[in-house]
């Protein structure tokens, strides 16, 4: 298959599409199975009853949001190092998905908090740090929309992504010193084994779906970039069909 390669990113746009679609489908099927498994097999919690089932989305979403943020930081660092525009587009794709996941974590946490603690919001360390993380993702994405030049956008957002990543542990520590009232962190160690497996499988399913979403956004970002470059080349040459290098 003939494939158009973006000059700035060096990534062919038709690459690995089928493979990622498979990952997405597997993730979706696994998520449905894991949710059913969790809802049907795990017994109601002693204190929380069936409300505990929220954990099967809330906790995997939080874990994967951290993963997305790590991806933003790594891709940003790689961009500053190598200067490939593709890394910047990858960071942006991961940030979009990360914002969605932190938003989901917060919303589910609040839905769970109201019946459990009697309040929608508490200034608890992990909740508060997640909110800060959410705002940093939002600021990162807003910065991108406010800058038109591709190289400047890439350079600036890479720096903002890196400083944001540096800030995450400091925010977490400071908020933890400030307030401490939460339920012990949910991890396979703090849980009865009947909850462990559904949680793990759900986390893996969500991770596959996240990978699919990031890959999909990345692909469309590369396509947009390639289209922009082709348009520019076309405009410069003034002749239709003149652009497009072949790989």
């Amino acid at each position, binding site marked *: 298959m003939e494939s158009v390669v973006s000059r700035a990113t060096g990534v062919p746009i038709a690459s690995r599409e089928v493979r990622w679609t498979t990952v997405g489908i597997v993730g979706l099927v696994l998520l449905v199975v894991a949710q059913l498994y969790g809802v049907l097999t795990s017994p109601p919690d002693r204190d929380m009853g069936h409300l505990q089932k929220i954990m099967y989305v809330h906790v995997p979403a939080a874990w994967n949001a951290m993963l997305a943020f790590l991806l933003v930081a790594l891709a940003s660092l790689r961009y500053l190092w190598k200067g490939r525009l593709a890394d910047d587009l990858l960071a942006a794709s991961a940030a979009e998905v990360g914002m969605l996941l932190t938003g989901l974590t917060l919303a589910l946490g609040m839905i769970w908090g109201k019946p459990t603690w009697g309040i929608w919001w508490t200034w608890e360390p992990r909740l508060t740090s997640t909110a800060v993380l959410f705002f940093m993702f939002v600021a990162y994405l807003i*910065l991108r929309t406010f*800058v038109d030049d591709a190289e400047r956008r890439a350079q600036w957002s890479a720096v903002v992504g890196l400083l944001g990543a*540096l800030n995450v542990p400091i925010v977490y520590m400071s908020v933890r010193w400030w307030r401490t009232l939460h339920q012990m962190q949910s991890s396979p160690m703090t849980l009865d084994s009947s909850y462990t497996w559904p949680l793990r499988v759900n986390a893996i399913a969500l991770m596959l779906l996240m990978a699919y979403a990031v890959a999909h956004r990345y692909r469309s970002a590369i396509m947009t970039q390639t289209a922009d470059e082709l348009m520019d080349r076309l405009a410069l040459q003034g002749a239709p069909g003149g652009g497009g290098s072949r790989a």
Partner: protein
Amino acid sequence: MSWNDDWRRVRAVALKDLTAERRSKSGLNAVTFLGVLVLMLFGFALGPDTESLRDAAIGAIWLAILFSGVLAFNRSYQLELDGGALEPLLLYPGSRWSIFAGKLLANLAFVGLVELIVIPVAMVLFHVSVPAGWGAQLGVTLLGTIGFVTLGTFYAAMSSRSRSREVLLPLLLFPMMIPVLLGAVEASTSLMEGNVMRDAGAWIRMLLVYDVVFLAAALAVFEFVIEV
């Protein structure tokens, strides 16, 4: 390039910015006035009860500094952009970080002057007397201000050259300011109450780490920001 040359460059940029500010004074007047205005608004919002005002004083001071100071940073680059002076400044030989360090020093002096007015006014409006350990309080204020001005000067290098800069800077800056705000307010409050829980030290160390980390990071990556 020796260390001396770099220092001369830093000083030149700082003095240039401060001279421009001294000759117009419009920025300083506006920002200080806004700071005092924010304090007044807090006073109205929190009601005239002396106890609740006193409890909220330190938080109100810091928010007044953040809300007014954030306006100063974009200005620091806006003056260069208006005069078409940023490119010539970049064309001068020497390291990029010295431009950042110079602007940082000028902004520190600027925000320090604003604080010199805003803090005493806040003490009057919120019925706070001069605390016993005022030296330590000054240290906390200084550490908090350094963290604030470092990232403010850094992010303004981007926001001042993008669309909607007035919105962008606070959006970028304020989420990063949460440790500074927490650390400064908690350390000051703890010192005000005689540091009974002995926790002021931990907060001061946190502020110190924050300042060092972000000062080093900003100096290291500033050239990526200013060159595009």
